[in-house]
């Protein structure tokens, strides 16, 4: 390697900032997505703490009703559109080209464009705080949203249109990358499962985001120019907005959870030292969840009195089947393996243990007469948080612990990571489990206050205590990242003895990623390389991995 003289330090620092702002490198863009979405996560988390603090006791002690009504919607918007979606996009941005052995995304400049459009959208959404807030909920039901006088709602709508455009551009980029830039030998059925879930997610985005974008434009016209799309007195129909919104909104749930499934399906085989059980079944299940995701949207509208109930009930029940397949395949992957419980694996197992609850309480909601009782109550709040906290957030943390060595060359502290896992595991259940009981008893959501005589005080207080446990776990994670980044970059290229191509290059990878690629003959090319001769490798072959010391 030739060495070049360093430029003077002063101009170097300015160059670094300039370098990040103008970069088209998928890894840098990925890290920028991860970091910025984490900042939005902190904003959303603070809003959640405001909500739980207000609800800790009956009566209005902390915020006014007007403030509260903006906060719960912006909490959801932050977490869904500005945290989970871009965080998964960011992880995909970093990992997908590496996993398929590509030098970059298919359209690097479009990739940078989608990131900056996302940031613009995010800032527009946050600026609604300064313009009266947006007291319309994340669902923005018309005609409440079209009649709300706050300017903040306009900013929210514009911001969401921007993040939607960003997602569409990103989805096209992922699809072209996955179809055109795979390494020689990597057929579609040799793609890592994380790539498969990103592929299906991108298809979902491509079909659903344009629909809601059209709807958002209609809301904007209704609000500002008297369009009347959703206004019955002008011949419009408020239910139409709900159809448009949920036709996007339900696939959105899978956009938020399928990559999480992919992450768990990457981690469990590595830490079980076995291949993913039923790879093809997994692919089929992922694709059918994607397809069925477009047939169930109106199960969010059972109580409108305006949908054909049995159709949507049937498909909602049906979607439990492919999800169940995944659970059994994960367990079968672990069965008979040699398991180690490093932090990524702990989070993957925590995901299985708790996402199951979100699946089961969701199956209750497919029972229409039961949905009549608990729709719009804390049962639904509990369900969505078991899916998005115990599901998406756990998987995101698993991914961050798992890929952090690849991104930074450093392993996050394991002891701190495990302590954080248990605090988050307990905190999640303390926060969200009691909400099932509150919902079943009739406590509706989106209220700043409840009666002291309803018998809900203790469970609400418990739930609020849990929220602060979650906040503590998040602080531990931030400290872990901060402390680790001050340490030496000594993780090595393949610290987990993993299977896929991202571990076949240096940590962090160089620009354009690979000097040369190992041959791809299965969905585990790196495993094949390490255990070249037979599936049951001799001890010597294992010690090829970097962490095990010098090669014998």
């Amino acid at each position, binding site marked *: 390697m030739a060495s070049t003289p360093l430029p003077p330090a002063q101009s170097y620092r300015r160059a670094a900032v300039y370098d990040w702002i103008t970069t088209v490198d998928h890894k840098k863009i990925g890290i920028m997505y991860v970091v910025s979405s984490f900042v939005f996560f902190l904003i959303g988390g603070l809003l959640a703490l405001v909500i739980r603090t207000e609800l800790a*006791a*009956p*009566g209005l*002690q902390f915020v006014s*009703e007007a403030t509260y*009504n903006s906060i719960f919607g912006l909490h959801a918007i932050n977490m869904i559109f500005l945290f989970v979606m871009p965080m998964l996009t960011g992880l995909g941005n970093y990992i997908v080209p590496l996993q398929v052995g590509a030098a970059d995304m298919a359209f690097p400049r479009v990739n940078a464009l989608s990131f900056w459009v996302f940031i613009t959208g995010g800032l527009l959404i946050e600026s609604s705080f300064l313009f009266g807030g947006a*007291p319309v909920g994340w669902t923005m*039901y018309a005609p*409440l949203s079209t009649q*709300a006088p706050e300017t903040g709602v306009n900013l929210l709508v514009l911001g969401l249109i921007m993040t939607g455009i960003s997602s569409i551009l990103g989805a096209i980029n992922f699809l072209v990358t996955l179809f055109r830039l795979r390494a020689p030998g990597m057929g579609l059925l040799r793609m890592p499962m994380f790539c498969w879930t990103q592929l299906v997610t991108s298809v979902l985005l491509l079909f659903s985001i344009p629909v809601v974008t059209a709807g958002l434009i209609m809301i904007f016209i209704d609000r500002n120019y008297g369009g009347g799309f959703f206004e*019955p007195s002008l011949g419009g*129909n*408020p*239910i139409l907005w709900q159809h448009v919104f949920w036709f996007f909104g339900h696939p959105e749930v899978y956009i938020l959870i399928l990559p999480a499934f992919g992450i768990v399906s990457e981690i469990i085989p590595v830490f079980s*030292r076995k*291949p993913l*059980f*039923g790879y093809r079944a997994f692919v089929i299940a992922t694709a059918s969840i994607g397809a069925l995701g477009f047939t169930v949207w109106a199960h969010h509208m059972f*109580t*409108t*009195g305006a949908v054909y109930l049995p159709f949507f*009930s049937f498909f909602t*029940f049906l979607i439990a*089947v492919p999800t169940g*397949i995944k659970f059994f395949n994960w367990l079968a992957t*672990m*069965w*008979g*393996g*040699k*398991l180690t419980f490093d932090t990524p694996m702990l989070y993957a*197992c925590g995901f299985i*243990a708790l996402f*199951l609850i979100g699946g089961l309480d969701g*199956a209750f909601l497919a*029972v*229409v*007469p039961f949905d*009549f*009782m608990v729709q*719009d109550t804390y049962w639904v709040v509990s369900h969505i948080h078991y899916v998005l906290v115990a599901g998406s957030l756990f998987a995101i943390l698993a991914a961050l612990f798992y890929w952090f060595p690849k991104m930074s060359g450093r392993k996050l502290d394991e002891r701190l990571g495990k302590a954080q896992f248990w605090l988050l595991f307990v905190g999640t259940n303390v926060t969200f489990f*009691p909400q*099932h*009981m509150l919902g*079943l*008893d*009739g406590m*509706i959501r*989106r*209220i700043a206050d*409840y*009666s*002291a*005589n*309803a018998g*809900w005080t203790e*469970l609400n*207080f418990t739930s609020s205590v849990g929220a602060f446990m979650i906040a503590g776990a998040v602080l531990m994670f931030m400290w872990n990242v901060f402390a680790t980044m001050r340490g030496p970059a000594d993780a090595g290229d393949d610290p987990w003895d993993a299977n896929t191509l991202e571990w076949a290059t240096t940590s962090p990878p160089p620009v354009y990623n690979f000097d040369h690629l190992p041959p791809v003959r299965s969905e585990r090319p790196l495993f094949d390389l390490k255990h070249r001769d037979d599936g049951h*490798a001799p*001890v010597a072959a294992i010690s090829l991995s970097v962490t095990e010391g010098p090669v014998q």
Partner: protein
Amino acid sequence: MRVFNAARAANRHLSLIGLALFATLLLAACATRGDDYPTSAGSPAFLPGKVVTQQGREAADLYLPIFIIAVVVFVLIEGILLFVALRFRRKRGDDTLPGQRHGNNVLELLWTGIPAVIVGVLFVVSTGVLLKVDAIAPNPAVTVDVTGFQWQWTFDYKDQGLSFTGAGKDGPEMVVPVDETIHIRLHSVDVIHSFYVPQFFRKLDVVPGRINEFQVNVEQEGTFGGQCAEFCGLAHADMYFTVRAVDRATFDQWVTDEQLKAAATPQPAPSGGPTAAKLQVSAVNKLAFEQATLRAPADVPLTIEFQNLDPVNPHNVSIKAGQPDGKDWIGLPIAKAGQVAVYQAPALPAGEYGYYCSVHPNMTGTLTVQ
């Protein structure tokens, strides 16, 4: 170790102080909403609370079997997960690979087929119950037209010529006879609301531009709290109402009494006598009164003439702690859109009072009594 114990003791003291603070907060927080008939179906638990309608009972009966299936699946999967995590741990220094099994088609078919059968059965059973819950009988005993608006309810008994609009913390009361079919029709004049009585085990949205209908047969006498369940703006959390179920004789008596009362309600006197003070208040929308401050002399009865110039919403004028016993004085009847109401409020001792619209608690002002 000693230091550690001391720290722990200090910690305990801190948490005791915290607990005491929390208790004080609880006492200080005087909750005023829906207190008499909370929108609760009993006390929160794993099983549904009290359900008082025939339709609700059918639906609630579905819960236990599904709950049992869910518990079985939960125990099965968490059990396997725990077993696997304990049984198949890699031993220290063990560098051999386990058997590399890639899948098994029989197993895949089994864990696709069995769940498919279970959800198929659940679908058939739940749809059967749905048809009963949603059934509409041809000749209901009582029909109530419910109108939801930001942020209260109006209950119209068109056959009986009665109408009740909510005011104050508990909202309007719907009185119905037990063991007879009650037909409820839902209308909205502004945004989407949802008519929800937890003890009916049912809600139905109140959608502008469409009329949703459902029927209930209440099987028990009592008063049941209800609340708007669809977020509808500022005072959504305050949209309470109650349903009181009574036997047929009491219901008929109630109808007669209310009809007499409605017929006998005199037009409010234009003035409260020579000593009364007159106040004028008006509103053009649901955001605020046109007057942010009012002045009145102390210790004389007040006559409040309220002009509702709002073309859409009903309003009134109520005074915080305006009754001698310290309770809020609520201005009744509520002035419908475009109407004028004249209220006779009790004499107030000198001081500062807040006044508000009990339909729209965000509409407030200050009344200075001197």
